[in-house]
């Protein structure tokens, strides 16, 4: 569980990045944080593993106050994948990159081997086992960063822009993985601009603007509300855009799923066309 209690954060430069942020993430929850550039999304999630400590208020991770513990001790519990993979990759080979944290956490040789192989095959990186991460494409490097964190199986997973550079197939895999994590009561927080990905997953959505949370609710309620989205520079998903142009059909307002949209349209149009 992550408890964010009236958190404010000001960078040394004087920029006030978070103002009065308060919410709770329960175990097994899947949350997407969305909002305009500079709204404080990355600053907020950096508080979840203690990389940043609040200037005002408290952040508790499983009851432990982040100010009173180290990033190292939180790391095993909270895995963090950065927006830009180049900020976290440094090893000579993909395999070493993925094994690095496992070694640091003191896992046994046998376990490390198994975990690394699992992560490589899950993220379709097996053929790059002995390749330098810096020889890979942008999307592939992003998956190496993801693999290096998934390998140690943290309780809480923070993914900053996980879908950047990923094709549709990879995104679908990520979605399936997140669903699987949820059945194991793991907590997933993503920061993303990928409206269509969020529409496909329908998680709890937190919208941020200027260091504050301006909306908090189920994806289908938030993403289908153009006025709220506009405040955070988020464009509605395509299904919502289409429905909003079809007022005369009197379709329900909170549809973000493509299949649901198709069924509703067929029902409406069958009557009209007959």
């Amino acid at each position, binding site marked *: 569980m992550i408890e964010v209690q009236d958190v404010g954060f000001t960078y040394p430069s004087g920029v006030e990045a978070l103002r009065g942020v308060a919410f709770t993430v329960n175990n097994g929850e899947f949350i997407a944080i969305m909002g*305009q550039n500079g709204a404080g999304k990355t600053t907020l999630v950096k508080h979840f593993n203690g990389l940043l400590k609040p200037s005002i208020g408290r952040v508790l991770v499983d009851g432990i106050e982040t100010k009173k513990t180290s990033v190292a001790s939180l790391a095993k519990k909270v895995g963090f994948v950065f927006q830009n993979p180049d900020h976290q990759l440094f090893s000579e080979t993909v395999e070493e990159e993925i094994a690095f944290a496992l070694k640091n956490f003191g896992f046994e040789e046998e376990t490390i081997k198994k975990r690394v192989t699992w992560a490589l095959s899950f993220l379709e990186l097996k053929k790059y086992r002995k390749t330098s991460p810096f020889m890979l494409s942008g*999307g592939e490097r992003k998956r190496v960063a993801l693999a290096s964190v998934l390998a140690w199986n943290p309780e809480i997973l923070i993914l900053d822009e996980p879908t950047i550079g990923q*094709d*549709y197939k990879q995104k679908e895999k990520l979605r399936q993985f997140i669903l699987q994590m949820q059945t194991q009561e793991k907590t997933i927080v993503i920061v993303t601009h990928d*409206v269509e990905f969020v529409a496909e997953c329908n998680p709890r959505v937190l919208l941020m603007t200027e260091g504050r949370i301006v909306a908090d609710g189920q994806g289908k309620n938030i993403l289908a509300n153009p006025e709220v989205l506009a405040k955070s520079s988020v464009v509605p998903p395509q299904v919502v855009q289409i429905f909003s142009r079809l007022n005369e059909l009197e379709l329900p307002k909170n549809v973000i799923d493509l299949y649901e949209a198709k069924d509703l349209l067929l029902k409406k149009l069958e009557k009209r066309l007959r």
Partner: protein
Amino acid sequence: MVIIETKNLSYTYPGGTKPSLNDVSIKIKAGEFALITGSSGSRKTTICRCFNGLIPHFYKGELEGEIRVADKDTTKHPTFEMAKEVGLVFQNPENQLFALSIEKDVAFGLENLGVPREKMRQRVDWALKLAGIYDLRERSPHEISGGQQQRVAIAAVLAMQPKIIVLDEPTSFLDPLSAKKIFEVIHDLNRKLGITVVLVEHRLDLTAKYADHIIIMDKGRVCQDGNPRTILGAESTRLIGVGIPKATLLFQMLAKDGLKLGSVVPLSSDEIAQSLLEAIKPHD
């Protein structure tokens, strides 16, 4: 007129055991808005590096086949010469920003070309305003967010007003509204100034509607090349794992269930909404 042409182009990075590009033959016409997409690791970035000569001049390696860009054989002209013709916006903006202020970064290319001071001032301000970062011009490019850095990289290329702009996932760090605005700016430059645009993107929901031409890559090869409506409307394209726009998918799904919305495959919400409204109009 063809402005970018490759014939049987193959390329292997130094130390690579397999070619990254394999027998690529494409033609992009002057004034086109071409969209390159394909699976992750399909070597979209690699082909972009060929367009301005970074391959082979900077990356070295083995290049076979032919490539001509703006009437020049890129293997025979150094990158600084190609830079006048082709502006490249990198996937990771940090890789191309280096000056102490945003303004200087945007002016750098023009300084190198020896553009007169007054003209440079105008072009830099024009580009900063188009990219929506005029107010940030005196800040350091290293203390702004990833999304803002992407705008700087775009402004730096716009200021050069090249014949061709190649953009490699240029808005991946930008919020959806900013991304939409940037794509509108690029589309505008394409339509009004006739600049040829080559855009690498996975998110076709946002971009397919602008494209005149789509090229789909897979494992270093071109697997589809042609009209966006024909290609994105084909069942086989969906099966390659390309992120077909939701509007196009909805059109296909409705057709499968017996509701045909005309013969033009929609690429945007507006287009499919229009077709749906037509369908419910009372017939005479």
